């Protein structure tokens, strides 16, 4: 008998006789709060930052003022081609090691924890938001949901190979519980909240 059969047989034998019911999730996520205000507050509290912008021009202006444009900047958003490269998506992911800033869009954000949902379709390469020194993510203000329950309602049966929630910059507190931003991933996260 294979290990799989062995394990499954023993599980079948040892699991309880009756299947207990799954709980109703609809009773959750009814907290009411100002979604955008909460989003901003939580993002700040976990080391991220935000800027409210009306269009891509404002994003470009902001980035020109805040980042070293001579360093490597990559994006998947054609509107940002003035300051960032678009032609890296089929490259060996290791070649992204010198990226200073990655700019991508998020499907939506979550107010209660400031997380942003991104998938393959928006990332260009899976490693892009992790390998860069800094990360910028654009999300529409109308696409901020209240809680994780709303987030998964929104995701529904969405098809993706990879998707991730990103909440703030990469961080660690493994040395004496002292918080340090920029563990292995991005050292900083700026979220552009677009009208």
């Amino acid at each position: 008998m294979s290990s799989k059969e062995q394990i499954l047989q023993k599980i079948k034998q040892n699991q309880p006789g009756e299947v207990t019911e799954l709980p109703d999730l609809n009773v959750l996520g009814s907290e009411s709060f100002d979604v955008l205000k909460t989003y901003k507050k939580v993002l700040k509290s976990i080391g991220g930052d935000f800027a409210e912008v009306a269009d891509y021009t404002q994003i470009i202006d902001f980035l020109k003022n805040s980042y070293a444009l001579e360093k490597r900047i990559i994006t998947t958003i054609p509107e940002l081609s003035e300051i960032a490269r678009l032609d890296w998506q089929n490259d060996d992911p290791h070649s992204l090691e010198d990226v200073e800033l990655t700019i991508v869009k998020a499907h939506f954000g979550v107010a209660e924890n400031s997380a942003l949902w991104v998938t393959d379709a928006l990332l260009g390469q899976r490693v892009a938001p992790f390998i860069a020194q800094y990360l910028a993510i654009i999300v529409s203000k109308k696409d901020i949901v209240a809680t994780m329950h709303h987030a998964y309602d929104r995701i529904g049966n969405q098809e993706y190979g990879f998707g991730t929630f990103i909440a703030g910059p990469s961080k660690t507190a493994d040395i004496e519980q002292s918080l340090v931003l920029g563990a292995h991933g991005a050292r900083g996260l700026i979220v552009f909240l677009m009208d």
Partner: protein
Amino acid sequence: MSSEKTITHSEAATRFNQDTERVNWHDETLWFVREKRDKSAHQIQDWELLRETASKIKNNVLSNIHDYLVEFEANAQQNGIIVHWAADAKEHNEIVHAIMVKHEVKQIVKSKSMLTEECHLNEYLSQRGIDVIDSDLGERIVQLRKEPPSHIVLPAIHLKKEDVSETFHKHLGTEKGNNDPQYLTEAARLHLRDTFLTRRAALTGVNFAIAETGEFVVCTNEGNADMGAHLADVHIACMGFEKLIPQRKHLGVFLRLLARSATGQPITTFSSHFKKPRDGKEIHIVIVDNGRSTQLGREDFRNSLKCIRCGACMNTCPVYRRSGGHSYHNAVAGPIGAILAPNLDMSKNADLPFASTLCGSCTNVCPVKIDIHDQLYKWRQVLVKEGHTPATKTIAMKTMATVLANPVIFNMAGKSGRFVMKNVPALVNNKMNKWYDQREMPDVPEESFREWYKKNSRESKTDKDEQ
């Protein structure tokens, strides 16, 4: 590690307590994490309902785990993921090794996985000439020091920054005496970045696996699991079978609870959902039993398998905070470790369920409502019945049971020698009464309550009046 003779929790704790200042620091540091958890949890209006819901989902999983596993495997395979099954630690290690041999890789980068600690994978692979590098900062620190993690979420919580500085100076060439966490973290970042860029194989743990979609979720703050997985040709994800949840939407419940319970963060920085491998690359999942199916059959202990490894029970445990993770001589320490470990090896871990005052705080912080302290009590009963307690203790207990069951003997024993005091606290160690090492005995009063009662109660006065 496994070949060394394990010293009992109480011996290890006694050593740990020789440095009072360090114990105070350890206690305060973990209490600080517990307070962050409280603050975060108390901000969520539905917190208790969330815990209840999570508990019910996990109960459902455990009652239907066979079908969920079958469903998960089919969906994962459909997604192009290669699924393996390991009955025990040995088979798990062999599977991982075989994948590496097949791909002719000699180096692997690994993010946090308590399962691989449980299976002693690092040891196994390095004995076969494979270089394993742990990429979680805390795990890297303890790996360089050749120590096991002392906490499932905060692996190096037992170390001070001076210790880390010393280790990094020795292994990574950092400046001697520079204890700045920022500086030390940056040094690890540079060192590990090189690792990520050069490893062709990456191993991660699994926080949740979803039956409905065949995907799995890995949560980190550092981004190390993603850095490893997205740069490697082969991604191996190892999971105990209890990590399954039925549907994607259930993640909404667990991701709200996990990080808040663990560190007080609203969510981990990255909650990555792996569904399909990149084109031309491979994802392997190793589903491990290693005693879990046995635990599933122990009705009293079954629901320990609901654990989502948040570590909240450790942070709140007054004993863990004052004895340190290593005193539990098990991959998973603290209260949850103490109810999981006896399932793996009763005789080796017979001391752990007794390393608790049964205060119950663990049960209250548990995000999936495992009745941890009740299970500690129940393990004690099992361990005694299975003969894992010293014979002297059993004899003392039997004597006590005889005396306490018989009011006449009890009263005689009480009068002549204060039976209770001699026997209750000093039960196990009559020769050298440990009570007295750092505590005084209570004063012996002139008369017991019952003697007073006989003379002074209304009842006795009435009796006398009637006579």
